């Protein structure tokens, strides 16, 4: 029975690019309790809905988070379209699906890199990020931005993607897949990586359900849950089936994300092959209708919820986002209980925390 000590973790910590603070109560080397405190990045941008007109607000919403910016833009415009009863053209919907999956690829690769860095495997981090640049390049060429795209708008998308560009995306995705395979082999087979991930930070299926885990964290614990099954975008037409893992440890979460990466490559290729012709936007004019609308969307990190309430003006009365990391924090605290102090950074990373989403 050792003495209890409290070790502060963060807000400025080399392992996380974002500020989150944890008070780790430890006994010898074991973590007894982890108390997270957040609020370093709170901006209060939901309130901006009152001063920005609804077509303008999409730029603010995209900047909730720079990693899942496309997902946030998509969620917001879909919610407003639902409120106003706007039907989006087929092609725009397929383009959104494609970009959304590309952003999942970039987000998961970013996560793989950061995890490698947390393991102390710096060359793997560098290689993963090198491969990821291909996807960012595709975003740059098709939307005009590397991380903030501003391509979704109420009523469709702002830019069309030409046939040649689609072919190029497909060939780039094939190349990326080839390069990723070499890297993922290291993540899944390398002994030193496995020794850091296997059996660490276990979250049982019961705990995942009880603590309302979402996204890859829930799926790695064996929970069958993916919002892409709910009929958002064109996933229904593309024959989508979620990746479910087992075990609920860090290795399982890594494996689920790697399988999702491969699945996203498939979906991008498929969308490019079935992309219908036609317009990419419809005109949406006038004030918002009075009423409310809520939609759920599967982001790279899990389920995000968007709620909008209109009151007949051009300003939303209330805009609310619930983000995946917010839902995964209780699971993270559960995973940290009883772990070694040295494993804390890895466990925190495996929920793929996005603090700027959480605090907005």
């Amino acid at each position, binding site marked *: 029975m050792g003495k209890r000590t409290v070790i502060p973790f963060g807000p400025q910590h080399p392992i996380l690019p974002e500020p989150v603070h944890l008070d780790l109560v430890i006994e010898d080397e074991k973590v007894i309790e982890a108390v997270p405190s957040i609020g370093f990045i709170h901006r209060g941008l939901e309130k901006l809905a009152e001063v920005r007109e609804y077509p303008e607000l999409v730029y603010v919403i995209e900047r909730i988070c720079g990693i899942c910016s496309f997902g946030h833009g998509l969620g917001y415009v879909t919610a407003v379209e639902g409120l106003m009863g706007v039907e989006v053209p087929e092609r725009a919907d397929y383009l959104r699906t494609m970009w959304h999956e590309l952003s999942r690829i970039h987000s998961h690769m970013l996560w793989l890199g950061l995890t490698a860095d947390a393991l102390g495997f710096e060359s793997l981090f560098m290689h993963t990020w090198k491969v990821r*640049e291909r996807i960012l390049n595709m975003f740059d060429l098709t939307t005009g931005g590397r991380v903030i795209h501003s391509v979704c708008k109420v009523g469709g998308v702002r830019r069309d993607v030409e046939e040649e560009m689609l072919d190029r995306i497909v060939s780039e995705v094939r190349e990326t897949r080839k390069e990723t395979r070499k890297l993922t082999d290291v993540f899944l087979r390398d002994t030193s990586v496995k020794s850091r991930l296997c059996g660490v930070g276990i979250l049982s299926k019961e705990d995942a359900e009880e603590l309302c885990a979402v996204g890859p964290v829930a799926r790695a614990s064996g929970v069958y849950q993916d919002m892409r099954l709910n009929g958002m975008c064109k996933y229904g037409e593309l024959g989508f089936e979620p990746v479910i893992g087992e075990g609920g440890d860090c290795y399982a979460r890594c494996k689920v994300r790697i399988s999702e990466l491969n699945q996203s490559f498939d979906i991008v290729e498929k969308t490019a092959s079935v992309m219908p012709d036609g317009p990419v936007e419809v005109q949406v004019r006038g004030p918002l209708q009075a009423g409310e609308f809520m939609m759920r969307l599967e982001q790279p990190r899990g389920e995000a919820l968007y709620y909008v309430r209109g009151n007949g003006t051009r300003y939303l009365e209330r805009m609310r986002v619930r983000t995946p990391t917010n839902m995964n924090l209780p699971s993270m605290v559960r995973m940290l209980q009883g772990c070694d102090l040295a494993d804390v950074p890895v466990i925190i990373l495996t929920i793929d925390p996005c603090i700027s989403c959480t605090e907005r």
Partner: protein
Amino acid sequence: MSNTSKSPWLIHYDGSSCNGCDIEVLACLTPLYDIERFGIINTGNPKHADIFLVTGSVNEKNAPVIRQIYEGMLEPKAVIAVGVCAASGGVFRRCYNVVGGIDRVIPVDVYVPGCAARPEAIIDGVVKGLEILEKKRDTVRASKNKISEVS
């Protein structure tokens, strides 16, 4: 790059940024942009750092953290504000929990524009920061010499 005699290390802190600039800062460190060719390494310790790279704007809660990191760094040091949020608050300027740019708390040497700032722009900013760092180093050296002359 003849104007740098040392390899400056940088420390990065995310104010209340959206992550956009942060992942671009990380992208600078990775093979495509490879800021390490200037001898620059990302460190987590303020005492080891010469350049303070801040993204995002200032709010009540992170202002003391930014100040603490800045004060922890040894002279000479350069501060680079990356992105429009760090310059003025940017798109979040009218949010209730945003005080403004980084210069409300600590002196800033270089402002890097962009939302999100592109890696090329960040590298350009850092290189400008290196020049400033070099000048500051000369000033520190000159004042040290003067002190030793007097004593």
